[in-house]
């Protein structure tokens, strides 16, 4: 189908970690015509390679385009924590960099005999040794990358927690964490895959009139008063945060940060100083907060110590929600930091958790299908529709959950301006393309 020609490289990368081989094959046009992209195509590819316990990373047609918040790539895998097929949204710049690196979908099969890292650039996949990254925390891992002059415009990296086989390990996009609460990092570690580097040095033409469509959507957004309520704190407000906690965290120095081409950021960098009880000195730190639920869970346990605790989780590559469950009640900062360090080196057999409670208005089961980290700020049915739409088209799910005034049609207009094609796409009911 020619409809998506400008939106994909039409290439799939297949990596066999057991054989240490890789190939780039053409993306089946039929799959794209039927499934459009993202999580739906991932599901299809998962079925094709299901015997090799694959991990799939894919982008949507709008990923990297002028559609607002077009940052998304989706990792699809059998979750070691929830026991079913999960779609974890990977944001920041992962999606566009993946697309600009020359491939649209990546199938990672098998298990390597020693730690490996994948480097993808100009449509080629290299399997590099990652021995030097094992046992080092995420900031140190990023430094090692720089030292070894491995170009990384976007990197998915696991930390020491994954190296030690901790099920609550969480993959990190750079040093910014992620919304992975489904065990993606654990799965990567079990495949001896330390990280995936996307070096997006290419580009795609996309449709010429996309810039105008983007302006139309932005005008629509900026006309809405709700647009002013941006940033991490406003998201915490929407999810529900206690007033006393809000007071504590508002004191720090915040700065809005956005994923790729997002007009209304929901993340913040935060600068804070704290007294490190282990070094008995004052430390100045900066972190980027992107995981709203993780931050809230830690804030409930750690109160004013939420920032150093968040930094610690980011450093070791841990899911803050899982960590918060294990932190001591009313523990001191030192006790909590020691507990996090302990968690990060204590291997466990992953126990499949079947949760039946509600997270906001969304059932835990539904919530976990999409990584378990997306803010439950809408009623379940609408939440599911918006998340699925985003996961297929390659637009940030948080953005679509926040701005329900942006309709499916608004986004489809980025794919085509042809009335006939638009009607065809509308009839497809994109949300229903994800089977699970």
């Amino acid at each position: 189908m020619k409809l998506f020609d400008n939106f994909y490289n039409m290439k799939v990368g297949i990596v066999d970690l057991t054989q240490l081989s890789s190939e780039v094959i053409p993306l089946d046009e039929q799959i794209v015509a039927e499934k459009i992209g993202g999580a739906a195509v991932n599901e299809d590819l998962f079925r094709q390679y299901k015997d090799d316990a694959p991990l799939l990373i894919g982008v949507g047609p709008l990923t990297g385009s002028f559609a607002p918040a077009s940052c998304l790539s989706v990792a699809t895998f059998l979750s070691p924590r929830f026991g079913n097929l999960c779609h974890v949204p990977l944001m920041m710049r992962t999606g566009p960099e993946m697309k600009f690196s020359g491939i649209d979908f990546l199938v990672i099969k098998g298990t390597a005999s020693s730690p490996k890292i994948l480097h993808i650039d100009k449509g080629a996949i290299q399997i590099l040794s990652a021995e030097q990254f094992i046992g080092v925390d995420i900031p140190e891992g990023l430094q090692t990358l720089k030292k070894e002059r491995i170009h990384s415009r976007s990197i998915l990296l696991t930390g020491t927690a994954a190296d030690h086989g901790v099920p609550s390990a969480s993959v990190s996009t750079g040093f910014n964490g992620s919304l992975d609460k489904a065990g993606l990092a654990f799965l990567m570690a079990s495949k001896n895959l330390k990280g995936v580097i996307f070096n997006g040095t290419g580009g795609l033409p996309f449709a010429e009139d996309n810039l105008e469509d983007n302006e139309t959507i932005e005008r629509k957004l900026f006309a809405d008063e709700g647009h002013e309520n941006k940033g991490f704190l406003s998201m915490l407000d929407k999810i529900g945060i206690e007033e006393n906690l809000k007071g504590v965290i508002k004191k720090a120095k915040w700065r809005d940060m956005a994923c790729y081409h997002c007009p209304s950021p929901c993340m913040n960098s935060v600068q804070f100083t704290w007294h490190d009880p282990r070094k008995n000195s004052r430390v100045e730190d900066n972190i980027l907060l992107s995981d709203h639920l993780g931050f809230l869970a830690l804030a409930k346990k750690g109160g004013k110590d939420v920032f150093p605790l968040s930094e610690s989780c980011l450093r070791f590559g841990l899911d803050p929600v899982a960590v918060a469950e294990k932190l001591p009640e009313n523990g001191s900062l030192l006790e909590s930091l020691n507990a996090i360090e302990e968690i990060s080196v204590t291997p466990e057999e992953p126990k499949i958790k079947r949760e039946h409670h509600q997270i906001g208005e969304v059932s835990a089961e539904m919530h976990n299908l999409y990584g378990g980290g997306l803010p439950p700020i809408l009623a379940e049915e609408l939440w599911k529709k918006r998340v699925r739409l985003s996961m297929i088209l390659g637009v940030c799910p948080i953005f679509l959950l926040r701005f329900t005034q942006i309709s499916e049609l608004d986004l489809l207009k980025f794919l085509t301006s042809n009335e006939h094609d638009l009607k065809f796409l509308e009839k497809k009911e994109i949300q229903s393309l994800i089977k699970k």
Partner: protein
Amino acid sequence: MQEQTNEQNNIITLEELRPRPEEKKTFSDHFMPRLHPGILFDPKKCTGCGTCEMVCSLRNVSKIAPTSASIKVLRDENSVKNFAIFCQHCRKPLCIEACPTRAIEKGEDGIVRIDKLFCVACGLCTMACPEAAPLQDPITGEINKCDLCEGDPQCVKYCPSGALTFTKGKRIRWIKALRWSVQTISFLLLVVALIGTFCSLKAGALSLSCPAGVLQNIASSGTVVLVWILSASLILGLTILAGRFFCGWICPFGFFLDLVDKITPKKIGWPSFLKSRMAKYGILAGAVGGSCALGFQAFCPVCPIGSICRSYGAAGTLNGANMGIVAVLGGLEVTERRVWCRYFCPVGALLALFAKIGLIKIVIGANQCKKFSCVQCAEVCPMGIIDADKLREGISPEIPMTECITCMRCIDRCPYGAAKIRFRWQKAVPENVEL
């Protein structure tokens, strides 16, 4: 001989092909240098979304390819801050000097452009540029450099957070114009019209005296006269309100030094072992102690401010001795700007003590300024108190108000609006909050 050979061989030299355009400077450019168009970047507002890179690459290579853009957003994972690298269209672009094929030119409109026909993508311009702003396309190998989209920069147009703004550079430097006017009027008033009166002026009930002179008077006579103190309090009060405003805007000797500076732009440097800003306090103490011991104002006879006020005699004659002091100290201007004011002036030292408890301060927010290749504020500061190295490191330098003469050159010159005048109790830049 070489030219002949070239001619015989029909070889066109680079000079013939791409002659360097002569720099055209109008008379007014010497006093009111033209500001050129450019893009201003506010790192506080930048969210790192990369929309600027997208739209720029669309113009450069007709596709969305952020690495082919002429602007690059650097996302520092450690400090979690964003910086944008793009051409500043410098006043004296180093890339032009570095380019071996003269592919880069600065137009009459102030925009530095690269002619891809002549560019051999050697990358020397990138190395020469303090911002590393000419960016090499990883695919085509071509050099991409901002040309401000010929006056309508797309990155500015589409930046959703307003971190980028376009300036056509037609800002009038009103502070400079005002300061020179006030300095000229003060000079004419104190040196020509009211001869020898800065030290002590009486106009009806109003009495105005040099505070250092009053201090020496008190020391030499051993008596404190209320009128003396009141007559000195005008300048001291002004200092508490506006810092060493007197030194920067009124002092006739300071104005004289500024004029000398105009004709001696190249400095040979003041010996480092004499660079002690405490020396002026020693001279002040010496003047007071000397006055006490000698029974007359010890420093006033050689004071350059007094000397310049007395140099033009009542009958229109020039006073040789006073002129000599002024000439010698003015000659020091070949070493550094305002050497006398920086290291030796006891009047400045006395005012500095009051400026320390003054109500205002000058702040330069490195967050807002960011451009480490700029440091124009440090270049124009006549007292040399702005730490350019700190600015290059992205740290807001502390401006000691005891040394600052509130000339506001830094405020006037800063293209980013990062230099500001603030009340002492106002926050300079948002402080890091301790938890």
